[in-house]
């Protein structure tokens, strides 16, 4: 096993067993029999390691959905749905870590260890937004469209938040939540209502146009 994989797996095991990240780089390296030097060749810090761990989950999800036989025919709404369902599916492999980590953070805060996930997801969401504009599923709002990936990221965090609190059998209610909230998101992005809201915001915001 490559050192990188070994360290990521070691991190997961540690979280699973102890419910918190390893205390230090040397502590983790010792249990795994990896030289500290090799750790730093892969990651700058423990946060960077964890960040890469969550980024990996998103990356694996992306690969899994994009390989699906139906992917090419999907519109943006269906792609987002497929992504979120696949994410829930994949996250089962790291359910314990997910519970420890996400039960205590609000979907609104953005700790250091989530940077990788955020970056990777927003990258993917930008493509999604481009696809959505091409299919006409959402209205193009010029510069404001740049905010969409951030909005989708918040949605992802809300889904995770719902899922870690879900007690239904096989997390069926999480599936229902994904379905309903995604429809809502796309409906909002399609209608004029949100344009007016943005317009108003822009009017008041310091960076907005003052013309009126």
């Amino acid at each position: 096993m490559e050192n990188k994989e070994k360290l990521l797996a070691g991190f997961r095991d540690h979280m699973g067993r102890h419910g918190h990240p390893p205390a230090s780089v040397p502590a983790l390296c010792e249990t795994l029999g990896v030289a500290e030097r090799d750790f730093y060749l892969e990651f700058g810090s423990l946060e960077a390691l964890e960040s890469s761990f969550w980024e990996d989950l998103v990356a694996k999800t992306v690969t899994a959905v994009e390989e699906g036989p139906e992917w090419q025919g999907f519109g943006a709404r269906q792609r987002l749905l497929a992504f979120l369902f696949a994410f829930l599916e994949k996250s089962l492999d790291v359910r314990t870590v997910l519970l420890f980590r996400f039960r205590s953070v609000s979907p609104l805060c953005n700790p250091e260890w989530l940077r990788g996930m955020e970056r990777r997801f927003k990258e993917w969401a930008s493509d999604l937004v481009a696809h959505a504009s091409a299919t006409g599923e959402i209205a193009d709002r010029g510069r404001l469209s740049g905010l969409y990936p951030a909005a989708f990221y918040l949605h992802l965090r809300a889904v995770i938040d719902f899922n870690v609190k879900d007690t239904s059998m096989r997390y069926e209610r999480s599936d229902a939540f994904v379905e309903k909230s995604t429809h809502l998101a796309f409906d909002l992005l399609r209608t004029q209502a949100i344009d007016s809201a943005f317009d108003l915001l822009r009017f008041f915001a310091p960076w907005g146009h003052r013309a009126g």
Partner: protein
Amino acid sequence: MAAQSTIRSSRLGRMAAFAGTGARVGINYLKHYGQRSIGSGVDENDLHERNAEAVYKTFSELKGGPLKLAQMLSIDHNLLPAAYAGQFAKAQYSAPPLSYPLVARTFRREMGRGPLEVFETFCESAAHGASIGQVHKATRDGRDFAVKVQYPGVAESLRSDLRIVKPIALQVIGLRERDVENYFREVETRLLEETDYTLELERSMELSRASSHLEGVSFPRYFPEYSCRRILTMEWIDGLTLDRFAKGPADQAERDRVGQALWDFYEFQIHTLQLFHADPHPGNFLVSPPGLTVLDFGCTKKIETLFYRRHFRFLDERLLGDRDALEEALVDLGILLPGDADASRARIRDLCAASIAILARPFRDGFFDFSDPSFMRSIYDLGEQNRRDDSLRGLRGQRGSPDSIYVNRAYFGLYSLLSAIGARVKTRLPAWLAT
């Protein structure tokens, strides 16, 4: 794609929706009385019509439980003014679709494989909606399949839905909770059973095997290897749902044939098997060239012989002429209670005698013409009359057996379907009564 976005998910959302209905119903009453005071002469039916619309709107926005309950209530016209019933009956055809990714997700969650790993082709959009799921068409090895996929979380939210819908339903219908508690309990049990497709599969196979000798009735083949808790796979049947058939150009002979098959099927189930398909609404039957195909054994009801005998004793014409025997039979069924005063005792007895006389009519002469509209009319009128009867409203206590809900529902559904088709059928009394 235009999958629906307004299903409310949280309990709070549902509460809000129902509260909204309450308000709308209230507003309609206000309007009604407002109009009445200025003397524009709106009748009460009008009001029912508008309230039904409001209640129905709410029901149809909510997936799962309420829709199911609405459907169920719609068949029991004795419990609902005709106007509500009409609106609720529409509910079954307005189910919003699940997105294809959710269907695929359900496959993976429940079977560990996507739809295209199980089937060769799988139609992404649903062929039919259903109240708690939807039906997709799929193919494999040259065969066509109907694959019913359930909405996620339906089973989970059913109980809480019922808890919310109950007080509103009661208020709308104008009944006391205590008096219909066992009615609701029975309905809840059946509803929860319907969310378990594994159970439905077993029963479908069991009932279709037991009824396979009946003429003119057939059943789709079921495929346990492609079915599970939330997915039910059967053979695809081309055909017209019973309501479309009824409205179509079929000639009298064909109507009689389909009607007879339906009658025989119910007679066999209720009087011989004492286990029956308790969901006789038009979407559950398809008419195709070889005859009638029965779908959907999600709602089946088993009755005990003791109850069966007590219930169907009323088909005996002699009983209606004999007051004491009739009262005794009503006590046995729990419709008359030991504490009833003489006056209400007589009142209930007479009302029951009137109901039985109408409901048993098809059994009387060995032949019955359901195309005669006056028959259904008299059933509706009877229900309306009982509903408006203040002396009945004042009666306390839980009456009757919850088992009769589904027997009545089956017969009422059967009569409605036969009337819609306009069939003339050969009938007969069960052997143990025909002496």
